[in-house]
């Protein structure tokens, strides 16, 4: 077989393989992808172990005096938080009682599970992360992912022991939002290249002259993916569009998407 024929054969076989892979049904493609990604599981495990070893090593280098003062500070914070939880419980019981009196549907509080970010998107054109929370932990597609700062994104692919999260600003993670102060509805949708700096374009559904920088933005619950009331961020600036018919605002996200280490999954 001549050299040129080998080249021609390799080229044809590889292009056919690529064509076959790209034309697989979505379900089969996802399963194949998650299966192939399993090759990297030992490295993700090793990475997590190395990270925890480094964290412990860093703690062992902290002087005892600092640790004691840190414990004292945490004990004070803990006591204060316990008071606040007790107050919150009383308020919730009162709200439930009133809701029952008014025959409102009782809203269950959010149930959250923690997860660790084990990998980031290897390309520059998507905004996703991998978390160590998969189907065995109860992960499902479209579950909301949060940090104490605010919404992070949604789960868009689930494997046995890891999931892929589409971050806010990715084409797969649109948000229906509402401005808490003015009750204006808007949407944040991807792809957004300014997302690198935590700024997102929010298109409002109507003109809103009352909207000001600093107003809080939360999820509106429309669209059925994200529940209502999850903090998103604060309005950074606004500008009118389409001869004043609509308003566009930039929102500074509450969560820092560039420094995600641990996230919470809304069950």
């Amino acid at each position, binding site marked *: 077989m001549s050299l040129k024929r*080998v*080249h021609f054969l*390799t*080229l044809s*076989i*590889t*292009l056919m*393989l*690529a064509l*076959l*892979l*790209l034309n*697989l049904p979505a379900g089969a*493609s*996802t399963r*194949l*992808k*998650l299966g*192939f*990604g399993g*090759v*990297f599981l030992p*490295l*993700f495990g090793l*990475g997590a172990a190395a990270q925890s070893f480094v964290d412990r090593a860093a703690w062992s280098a902290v002087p005892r005096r600092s640790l004691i003062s840190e414990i004292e500070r945490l004990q004070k914070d803990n006591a204060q938080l316990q008071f606040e939880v007790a107050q919150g419980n009383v308020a919730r019981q009162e709200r439930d009682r009133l809701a029952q009196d008014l025959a409102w549907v009782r809203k269950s509080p959010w149930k959250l599970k923690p997860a660790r970010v084990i*990998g*980031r*998107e*290897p*390309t*520059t*054109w*998507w*905004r*996703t992360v*991998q978390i160590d929370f998969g189907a065995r932990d109860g992960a499902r597609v479209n579950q909301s992912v949060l940090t104490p700062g605010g919404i992070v994104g949604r789960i*868009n*692919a689930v494997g046995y022991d890891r999931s*892929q999260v*589409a971050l806010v600003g*990715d*084409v*797969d993670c649109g948000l229906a939002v509402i401005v808490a102060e003015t009750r204006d509805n808007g949407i944040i949708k*991807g*792809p*957004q*290249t300014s997302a*690198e700096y935590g700024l997102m374009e929010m298109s409002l559904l109507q003109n809103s002259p009352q909207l000001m920088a600093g107003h809080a933005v939360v999820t509106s619950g429309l669209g059925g993916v994200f529940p209502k009331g999850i903090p998103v961020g604060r309005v950074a600036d606004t500008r009118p569009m389409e001869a004043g018919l609509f308003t566009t605002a930039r929102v500074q996200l509450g969560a820092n998407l*560039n*420094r995600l280490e641990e996230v919470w999954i809304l069950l």
Partner: protein
Amino acid sequence: MSWVPLTSLFVAAWLATYAQTQFPMVRLAFGIPFCILPALAAYVAMNHSILITTVFTVVTALGVDSLSANRFGVSVVPFFLFGFIAHISRHVLLQDQRYTQFWLGFTGGILVPLGTLAMLFLGQREPMFGSVTIRQLLLLGLLNGLVCPAFFWLFDRIQQGFDYQPLAVPSFRPDREIKRGRT
């Protein structure tokens, strides 16, 4: 041929694919992932057969796609075509020169992501693309250009260390022997 140099290439690709999802500080500072696979593919294309180049580029591309939001298989064509073109042009490239290795890595670092983006646009998906993409592509090219000579140096050493060395040809030739004395 020893199996160690070839295995070390695949292990390096495995680690490099994983590294592409790590190092948040690199991403924070330069806005790009630590992507050095095109440079590795350039080394393989220059030093191995078309079969090994094909297997290497296809497996590497599938590894990247499996950890990314890309459709599975979308990077296969750009990775393979880069390896294939580099392989068939290797006879006209001065591959022992550092600047050739730099430009090979630089070209791969730009062409592979650009090809994948083109495939995504053809597949009617909407990846992030803007003026920032040009800066990211140039940085990826520069990163791959810088690591490519290092890969050539490292894997050439591994090759020399583990592969069978060619037998040294002795300088003695019986037909050139000077016969002394009376015959």
